[in-house]
Each structure stands twice: as C-alpha cells, then as structure tokens.
C-alpha cells in the first residue's frame, strides 16, 4: 500500500514537472502580428529552423542570442517586409545552408539521410524473417522427435 502511494506521488510530481517545463519553453518574447496567417507562419518557421549555436534545438526552444536574433529576423521579414514563408526559408538557407532546416530537401547530399531509416528497416525485417524461418524449420523436426519418442513410448 505504501509503495503504491509512493509511485503515485512520483507519477504526479513528474506530471507537474513536465507541465512546468512546457510553460518555460513557451515563454519567449511576444511579437505583434497583423494577421493570424503571419502568426501561424512565424510559429511554423521557428519550429522548423535550427538554432546553430545549440544544434539540437530549434529557434523556438533555444534562448541563445543567435536564436533571439533569428526569431527577430523571421518576424521582421514576415510582418514588416510582408515576405512569405518560402522567402524566409530561402534567406536562412542562403546564409546558413541546409543545416539550418530541420526538414531538409531531398538532394544527392541528403539522400542517405532520407533513405537511411528505410534501409535499416528493410535490413531489420530481412534479419527478422531469417530468424523466424530458421526457428520454424527447427520446430517441426523437434516436434517430429517428440512424436517419435511419444510413439516409441506407446
């Protein structure tokens, strides 16, 4: 009973913690937008663009100075300069390369990146099939032996 209570309190503190973490992530500067579309584009862009300083975070998550600058740049381009989403992406790629994208285009350079997971999946399936087939071919002979011994004992 005691253990049950302990587990439950651990579970709830974990829930509260993750909830708090989420609000911490969301508390970045607030920018004014003219239209709902601009705000939507802004949120998509800062989610898709990588912060080059802390490379495993996107612009939305990172609080590095460069991420702040680039968020400001995205906002300026969308709201002040009335540019569309694609031209913001183009602007970033021209300066920082495809590396800035968390959703890179399929090119000869990124081909392995895109196809790699499927290659590994196929390899895994092939391996699994072989193991299953092997164990299938072993089992009947085992059964046969068992039958043999069973018939012998009869």
């Amino acid at each position: 009973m005691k253990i049950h209570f302990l587990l439950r309190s651990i579970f709830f503190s974990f829930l509260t913690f993750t909830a708090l973490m989420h609000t911490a992530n969301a508390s970045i500067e607030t920018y004014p937008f003219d239209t709902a579309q601009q705000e939507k584009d802004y949120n998509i862009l800062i989610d898709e663009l990588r912060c080059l300083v802390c490379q495993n975070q996107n612009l939305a998550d990172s609080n590095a100075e460069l991420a702040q600058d680039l968020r400001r740049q995205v906002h300026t381009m969308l709201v002040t300069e009335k540019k569309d989403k694609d031209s913001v992406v183009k602007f970033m790629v021209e300066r920082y390369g495809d590396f800035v994208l968390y959703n890179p285009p399929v090119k000869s350079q990124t081909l392995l990146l895109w196809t790699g997971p499927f290659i590994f999946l196929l390899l895994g399936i092939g391996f699994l099939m072989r193991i299953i087939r092997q164990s299938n071919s072993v089992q009947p002979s085992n059964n046969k032996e068992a039958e043999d011994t069973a018939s012998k004992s009869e």
Partner: protein
Amino acid sequence: MNKQMIPLAIFSALVIFLAIGLTLDPKDVPSPLIGKPAANFNLQKLYSDETFSPNELKGEPWILNIWASWCVSCRQEHQLFVDLAKEQLITIVGLNYKDTPAEAKAWLKELGNPYQVTVQDPNGQAGIDWGVYGVPETFVMDSQGIIRYKFTGPLTKKRIKQILLPLLSELKDNKTQVK
C-alpha cells in the same frame, strides 16, 4: 566459426564509425557562402564617425575577422592576427560583433590592434547576412570580392600554416596575373 565472427564484425564496424565521428567537429557547419560574393554592409567605424563598406576594398583580397570582447576564443586567436598584421600580407578588417565601443576599444588597447579598419555591428544584423553563428569567425575574400574560405572558431598556428598562408599566396598570384 563464421557465425561467431559476425558480432565481432558488427562491433568493429561500429567502433570505426564512432572513431570517425569523434574526429569530426559538429560546430564546423559548411558555409553555403563560399564561392559567392561577400555580403555588403555599411557600418560605423570603431574609431571614427565615418562608415565603412567592403566595396571600398574592391580589387584586393582581404580578411574579415568577426570578434567580440566577451568572446573567450577571440582572445585566444588574437595574438595570431597581431602577428599576421605585422607581416602586412593582406588587409584585415575587424567586425566587432554585438559589443559596446568602450569595451571593444579597451580590448584592442590591451591585446593590440591588427585591423586596418574595425567596424561595429552592435545588434548582429551584418552577422546574420554573413551567416555568423558563433564568434570568432574569419572569412577570406579574393580580389573579386568572392568568399574563398571561412574559418569557424579560433585560428590556430596550424590552420594558418596549412590553410591560410597557401590560400593567401594563391590569391596574390591571381592578382598579379590579372594585372
């Protein structure tokens, strides 16, 4: 026998890939700007009220070193720039990134000033145009104003000897050929 070797083979392949991974620098992102014309800027100089633009340098190769007084690795590489400037091989421009003039001047006074011109980029706007994501960064431009190389992180004696000096002599040769 053969079957027993398979895990060992997989393990060795893994070790080789991980060992290669250890030698790579994830911070060294290839710049898409190499081979392209350098971005222009028009920024205020550190020691006067005039502005400076790279257009004024057309016709000669030059180096842009992006630094800040708050940047520790800039301090580490700075002496190398001071030494390089003494040899007068090439024009070196300093771009003082997200800094204050007072701190920048104090820093140059303490460590020496290798720059023919120093410009200020207090909000990092020129930095974005040059694809800067971490100081120090150093760009090498040829006489046509094309970016030929980018050093990410501090210069070292090894990088100067192996990359910078051969590149500079190549740029110099090209320049005399054009003339």
